């Protein structure tokens, strides 16, 4: 009897600790972002200026756009390694189009219109090939998209012969350098896409089908979900997003280098998705989380840069961040 009384209170703190980890697992990204913002406020000069805000938002926009497409792919239980290479292809095609190297241009605006659409459609088509490999041949997504990760950058380099394409085209570069109500255009673009994706995931049949496919593919198929079509579509969307991001990046830089555009972007995008709380095994898609995840990565990069920490150490910090986020996710999972 006495023993029982003495033992009884013991489980309480254990359960409380569990809820703290659960809380962190669910809202860890937001907490991390808040901590980082505070840290930036205290430790770096001039953090609360419009300029700093603009710089950070400009830099994060590309990652967010790619990571949105990646979120849907991951939600189906897949992964898309080809996004960085697709960005390079879009970045290689666009200048050739508005400079009139591919087709003769009747008027300059035709070139800009082509440059804003054709590259994105091209990367969307390549995304369809990813999806086709995954569904038609049931090739694992890592391998299927590895093909275009390797070949895609090669294609971009072959198109441009590996040369840097420098250009000045104000009409085209609106997407990278233009401003609307004081904020860069690509920030508005990013915000609009986040909204659209959030609505798609929450409100549309397609969004639910994506989650169903990732949650339990066999059950989804039995319930009449067109699994193959849904999967192909998410890879197409991921390709389209990568194309848009590629255009934004070259517009900001006023140059396109097929060797560098989008290099390592797949890692940043996957990290943003994972930190944002979308489980990599599929079945969940947290669009807001992905946005927060991308911001966390950007803030870490910014703070380390502002404090003069070498890039190399920043890489190590990023690695720790990814591991910490994924480990926390595991703790929060029931059972």
């Amino acid at each position, binding site marked *: 009897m006495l023993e029982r009384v003495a033992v009884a209170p013991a489980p309480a703190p254990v359960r409380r600790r569990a809820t703290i980890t659960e809380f962190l697992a669910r809202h860890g990204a937001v907490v991390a972002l808040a901590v980082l913002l505070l840290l930036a406020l205290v430790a770096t000069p001039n953090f609360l200026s419009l300029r700093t805000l603009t710089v950070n938002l400009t830099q994060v926009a590309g990652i967010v756009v790619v990571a949105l497409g990646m979120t849907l792919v991951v939600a189906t239980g897949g992964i898309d390694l080809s996004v960085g290479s697709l960005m390079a292809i879009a970045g290689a095609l666009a200048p050739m189009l508005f400079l009139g190297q591919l087709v003769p241009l009747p008027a300059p605006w035709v070139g800009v219109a082509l440059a804003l659409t054709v590259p994105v459609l091209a990367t969307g088509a390549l995304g369809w090939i990813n999806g086709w490999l995954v569904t038609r*041949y049931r090739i694992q997504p890592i391998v*299927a998209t590895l093909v275009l990760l390797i070949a895609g950058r090669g294609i971009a380099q072959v198109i441009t012969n590996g040369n840097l394409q420098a250009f000045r085209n104000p009409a085209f570069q609106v997407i990278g350098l233009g401003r609307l109500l004081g904020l860069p255009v690509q920030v508005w673009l990013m915000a609009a896409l986040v909204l659209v994706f959030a609505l798609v995931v929450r409100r549309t049949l397609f969004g639910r089908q994506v989650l169903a496919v990732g949650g339990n593919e066999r059950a989804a198929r039995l319930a009449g979900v067109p699994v193959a079509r849904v999967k192909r579509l998410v890879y197409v969307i991921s390709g389209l997003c990568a194309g848009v991001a590629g255009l934004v990046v070259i517009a900001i830089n006023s140059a396109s280098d097929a060797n560098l555009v989008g290099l390592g972007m797949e890692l940043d995008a996957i990290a943003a998705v994972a930190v944002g709380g979308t489980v990599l095994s599929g079945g969940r898609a947290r669009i807001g989380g992905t946005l927060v995840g991308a911001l966390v990565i950007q803030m870490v990069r910014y703070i380390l840069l502002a404090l003069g920490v070498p890039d190399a150490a920043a890489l*190590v910090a990023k690695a720790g961040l990814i591991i910490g986020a994924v480990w926390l996710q595991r703790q929060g999972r029931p059972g």
Partner: protein
Amino acid sequence: MSASGARAFGGRALPLAGRYGVVAALALLILFGVARYDYFLGAFNVLSFLRYNSMFALVSLGMAFVIMSGGIDLSVGAVAALGSVASALASGLGWAPGLVAGLGAGLGAGLLNGVLVVRLRIAPFIATLATMLAANGCALLLANNESVSVSYDTGFTEIGQGDWLGLPVPAWIALLAYAAGSVVLNVTGLGRTVLATGGGEDAARLMGLRVDRAKWAVYAASGTLAGMAGAILAAQFGAGQPIEGVGWELFAIAAVVVGGTLLTGGEGSVGTTLAGALLLGLIFNILNFENGRGFISLSAYWQSVIRGLFLLAVVVMQAKLSGRAAAQDT
């Protein structure tokens, strides 16, 4: 041998064509080269081919074991770069300390992968991705963002540039590693446990196999082999290079897949992995010869396009041969 091992543990054996297709393709490509180019089998070409591609062969071997266990190791390229820096820094003390430093750096990274995958149960894809970033950062920090010259007085460069009995030293190292890998996979219990783990981890655990030990072993081996490749890299080019190794993991994965090892794990072969690595290297070699004839001029950039297409052809063929092509398609 390994096929029967896989079958015994319920793995699906590929038809012979899938498994030895790569050897046939390698033979055909060599015949093509011999028939078309004058100096294809010349000592200079063969030796420099082996010297250079031994590094990739070593990395591919480690990757093959990791993939057979159902995992993946994305960190090998960055770990090789780290190994090259570490061994270059230590090469002044003698060739042995230089070699040990490279191997040690690789082993350390491999053990880190082991901790993340086995202890923290983080998906191999993410865990090794993080190690890749960390190794990349450490290499840059150690090297101070520059390439590190190796010592030429201690005989360290022999590891990459030397010859022994008519073959380059790196080729001997790779041959030894592949022989050892083949023995481990086909003869030892560890090899069977690796295959069983990849075939079905839960089942292997229920059978009482030491799954965790097998996983530790494959990641440690993959890291160490990448470190070895790094030491060879430093010795061959006279410098530890913190930014080398980009894309090596892709080469290794491609070589393993081309070599007929299923990416789902549970089945694979050491010998055909070597054939896969040689095949991918040979594509580049033949591209060089073709350019030399002057009829076409394909830039080096075509290399990755061709490799990608090759990988595509192989995975599609693998999918068809193993009868996994989807019937559900709409």
